[in-house]
């Protein structure tokens, strides 16, 4: 329908773009975050209505039907998804957005008249498909469909370089001739590049990569705005691209990592999940039975949960173990570090999901004085948040970060998958202290074994 004059459509797009700016600003502060999100959604609705009213749109029943189907798929999934699965859902949404942009640009290839829009088209197809396949891999990693550790193979940098060179060549052909073959090659090489980009990234760094791919998708949407001559797409996409870049850097620095280090770290041979040298000093490792005895005959146990607990989905076993200890009249509380986990507030929500009583979850200020009187500090899948280097070693990447004072407990038990350092990539001195024992293995398996041993005591 052409009921709206172009000037009115442009004005409404301006309103929508303003909504997006206000949405991003709102989302940056806790008080206004929810309202910000609603303003963003309002802007999107305004924009979609505007496009229907301002342009000649054929195939209307098909389009409306598809939108209905898409909404019916997306809304219930988003409503029901578990908290621990939200990061991968965001990754998936990001990927399909990039895929949609690439398809839109692909269809516009025959309509390209200028070099300028040709370049924008090639950019959208390439980066959109990188974003799509990259997001699919991050989804698979977070969902543990594929191993979360960095996946590398010999000659990966060479393959990546060849793929990028091929993509660049195809892009040039697309701009010059618009040949369908080159378009498909560009699409395929873009998909391959996305896979190669994300495979070497360690599971711990995946959230930062999602944020980076999010910025990529934003830029593709901006470029598709150039292709279609639509100012709203240009503005909205650029906003997301720019704010996404800032956000990626902020997330990386909050975790003590650099973006380039994450992306290229694995190519250089080092694992991005902790690239510092692992020393071969001995640690005291022990069996599940020994840990069960330590716990079962303690009077007070403080549990320090971390990301390892979340990835292993071990929160329910953890809660069962705590209950089993309580049944033996042992005092059990949880020490929650505010940045433990992958989402701010991750541990609170995670333990709440396992029906751990709210009063058992103690904030850092509350729990730290209690470690002195604790018999055992049970550190499950956490590392940097109990690393004494934050207090003692000036110049350490985590120096100055407030930590949980687990070192003060009479005994410290680490449940760890390996000796790999935490996010900050530095060794934890606490692991080598005489009061420390380490039980290696997946948190869920280890906890189940400890639980059955405690029950057998």
């Amino acid at each position: 329908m052409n009921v709206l004059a172009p000037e009115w459509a442009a004005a409404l797009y301006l309103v929508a773009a303003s909504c997006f700016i206000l949405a991003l600003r709102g989302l940056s502060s806790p008080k206004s975050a929810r309202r910000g999100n609603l303003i963003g959604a309002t802007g999107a609705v305004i924009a979609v209505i505007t496009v229907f009213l301002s342009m000649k749109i054929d195939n209307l029943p098909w389009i409306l039907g598809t939108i209905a189907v898409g909404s019916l798929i997306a809304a219930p999934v988003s409503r029901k998804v578990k908290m621990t699965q939200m990061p991968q859902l965001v990754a998936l949404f990001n990927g399909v957005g990039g895929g949609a942009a690439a398809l839109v640009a692909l269809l516009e290839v025959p309509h390209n008249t200028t070099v300028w829009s040709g370049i924008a088209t090639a950019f959208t197809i390439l980066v959109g498909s990188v974003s799509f396949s990259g997001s699919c891999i991050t989804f698979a990693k977070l969902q543990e469909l594929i191993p979360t550790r960095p996946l590398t193979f010999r000659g990966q940098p060479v393959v990546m370089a060849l793929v990028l060179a091929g993509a660049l060549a195809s892009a040039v052909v697309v701009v010059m001739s618009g040949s369908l073959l080159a378009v498909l090659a560009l699409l395929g090489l873009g998909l391959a590049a996305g896979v190669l980009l994300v495979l070497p990234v360690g599971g711990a760094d995946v959230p930062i990569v999602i944020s980076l791919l999010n910025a990529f998708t934003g830029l593709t949407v901006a470029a598709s705005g150039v292709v279609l001559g639509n100012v709203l797409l240009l503005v909205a996409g650029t906003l997301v691209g720019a704010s996404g870049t800032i956000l990626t850097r902020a997330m990386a620095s909050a975790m003590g990592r650099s973006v380039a280090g994450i992306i290229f770290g694995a190519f250089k041979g080092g694992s991005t999940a902790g690239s510092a040298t692992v020393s071969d000093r001995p640690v005291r490792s022990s069996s599940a039975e020994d840990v069960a005895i330590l716990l079962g005959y303690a009077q007070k146990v403080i549990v320090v949960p971390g990301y390892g607990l979340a990835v292993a989905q071990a929160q329910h076993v953890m809660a069962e173990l705590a209950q089993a200890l309580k049944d033996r009249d042992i005092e059990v509380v949880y020490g929650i570090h505010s940045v433990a986990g992958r989402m701010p507030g991750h541990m609170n929500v995670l333990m709440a999901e396992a029906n751990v009583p709210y009063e058992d979850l103690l904030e850092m200020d509350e729990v730290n004085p209690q470690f002195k009187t604790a018999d055992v500090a049970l550190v499950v899948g956490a590392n940097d948040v109990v690393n004494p280097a934050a207090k003692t070693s000036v110049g350490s990447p985590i120096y100055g970060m407030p930590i949980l004072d687990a070192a003060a407990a009479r005994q410290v038990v680490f449940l760890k998958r390996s000796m790999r350092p935490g996010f900050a990539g530095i060794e934890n001195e606490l692991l080598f202290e005489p009061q420390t024992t380490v039980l290696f293995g997946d948190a869920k398996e280890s906890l189940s074994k400890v639980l059955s041993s405690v029950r057998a005591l």
Partner: protein
Amino acid sequence: MDAVTTLTIFVLAVFIGFEVVSKVSSTLHTPLMSGANAIHGIILVGAIIVAGQAESIGVLVVALIATLLATINLVGGFVVTDRMLDMFSGRASGRKAPEKKGEQL
């Protein structure tokens, strides 16, 4: 749109994008990412335009796939962000947002 206008809009939007999120607290990193993710779902507008001008069945099918994907991005993005913020509210309120550096494994 001519190149200069496009470039002008682009550069100004970059500055706004930098500016609006420059002071975000680490508590809100995840919801902000999710919200920004929802906003680029606006590619739906582009998908609708292409689908609305499709003249062959092949183009229409591809455009409808794009429409479907874009709708999932847009609708799902806003809904999941809202749920995320719902979870944070209650706990986040009344407490100062943490601005500590470092996360751990």
